[in-house]
């Protein structure tokens, strides 16, 4: 490995890990004495019912957001690459908008516009919040999936599949999707991280999600807040790594196809 690569990676590791290490030191301090080392803060978090409750809600929201996003964006981007290439720059432009709209502005707009909608949508995080999260995930979804579609030959694959007698659904699900698996997985990771970290929208629409629990603990507790921060960071990272491993095990064949650039 090139020496310059070592240097830069070392700098990256130092910058990213030292603050987490400082948080770790703080999380191991005992409340009564202010000194190291005890796991009581971690025990507090793990024995806290709200921790598990909100974690479950946020993970479910993430899964739902990923599912709906893929269902909307994969066919659309596929279609654009296949038939409507001139639409691509327009969608790319649109993909930047949610990325730069401050969530605080977005949520007030959303609350205003959808105030009168039925409660199965408005009152449930599975409705209202997911709708907002799909928009938040849109830029990441678009850029990942777009890169994935650009790296495969959409026309050849589609024609081959159709000449063998497959209809559109079969083509999409059994031919196209496996070939963009890596891109779809990457998009899913990022969506998971977004949902696990999104605070403003959930807070102003009064839903109890994991980031809200995180914020509350940070404002009211000392050492457990640090423990919770590290646990949530670790959990999200772990979830992403496991998604990666799942994708890698089944997707090696697809990777070979796409890697032949």
């Amino acid at each position, binding site marked *: 490995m090139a020496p310059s690569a070592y240097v830069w990676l070392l700098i990256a590791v130092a910058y990213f890990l030292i603050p987490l290490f400082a948080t770790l030191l*703080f999380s191991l*301090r*005992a*409340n*009564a*004495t*202010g*000194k190291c080392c005890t796991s009581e803060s971690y025990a507090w978090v793990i024995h806290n019912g709200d921790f598990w409750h909100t974690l479950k809600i946020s993970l479910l929201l993430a899964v739902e957001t990923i599912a709906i996003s893929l269902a909307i964006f994969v066919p659309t981007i596929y279609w654009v690459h296949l038939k409507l290439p001139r639409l691509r720059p327009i969608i790319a432009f649109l993909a930047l908008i949610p990325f730069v709209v401050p969530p605080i502005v977005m949520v007030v707009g959303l*609350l*205003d516009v959808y*105030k009168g909608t039925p*409660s199965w949508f*408005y*009152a449930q995080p599975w409705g209202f919040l997911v709708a907002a999260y799909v928009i938040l995930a849109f830029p990441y979804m678009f850029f990942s999936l777009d890169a994935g579609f650009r790296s495969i030959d959409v026309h050849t694959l589609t024609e081959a599949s159709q000449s063998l007698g497959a209809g559109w659904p079969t083509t999409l699900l059994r031919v196209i999707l496996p070939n963009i698996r890596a891109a779809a997985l990457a998009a899913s990771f990022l969506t998971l991280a977004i949902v696990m970290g999104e605070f403003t929208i959930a*807070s*102003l*629409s*009064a839903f*109890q999600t994991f980031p*809200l629990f995180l*914020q*509350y603990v*940070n*404002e*009211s*507790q*000392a*050492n457990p*807040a*640090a423990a919770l921060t590290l646990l949530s960071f670790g959990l999200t990272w772990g979830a992403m790594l496991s998604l990666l491993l799942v994708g890698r095990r089944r997707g090696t064949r697809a990777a070979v196809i796409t890697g032949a650039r």
Partner: protein
Amino acid sequence: MMSTFTKKYGIAITNDNPDGSSAQENQAIRSLKGDSRAPDAVDVGVSFAVAGTIEGLYQKYFVSTFSTIPRAMKDTRGYWWGDYWGAVSIGYNGNLIGNPPKTWKDLLKPEYKGKVAMNGSPLTSNSAVSGVIAASLANGGSTSNVGPGIDFFAQLKSSGNFIPVGTTPATVASGQTPISIDWDYNNLAYTKEFPAAKWGVNIPSDGVYGGYYAQAINATAPHPWAARLWQEFMFSDQGQIIFLKGFTHPARFNDLAKRKKLPASLLNALPAPALYAQAKFASIPQQTAAKAKIATDWPTKVGS
């Protein structure tokens, strides 16, 4: 307070957004109208209570002990009631501060360089606004003139004493904010929560400013009767004494004191009553004016 209520009446309470700001609470009433998630009762700053009443966000109710709440702390038409009050205090970390500050003037001493923090920014935190008004009282200003308070903090910042880190339990426990200007009940709670920090609390004798928060019932509350029961409980003797346990002065403090219902142990946990007797309160118009002046002057004089 909530667990005692739940134990007594068997009604579960969902504490939605426990650290929410008053604006968020009023906004929740507006946005969640007709929804079962809407708050039944809210705890807001007084100016928001007044604004909320004008906007029609609350419903009338007279708790049974309404007459014993001081006139200045309630809406006579029954839309909101002050539940507790406190005074601005200076909390300090006993390990890191050898010579605790007792007055606003003390805070300017060079030995406190890089050590004085507030509970948030006066642009968003009511506690911080109150800190500025209190400082103003100590520097020639008044509840209607908050300019000297802003100048005081400008001076505190240029001398390097003031650090703009917002106080949180973590910064208190870690010693990152060795001195914190905050409501007395918050600082007093830290003394119990973080014994290792040896947290102490002083009410600055040269400027004592008090403030209170108000309770109101949502006009379109999904559970209005439960909300009323909650208010009854909060303003009963039992409820008010629970407030005292939380280091605050309950609204009916004087009434309870007259009837000798206040436990001595709880009274002793608070700083000297003589200081509290000096507490000045600002009227709603004064508070509004103070906030407006802070909004324009603070970013230029104290912000970077």
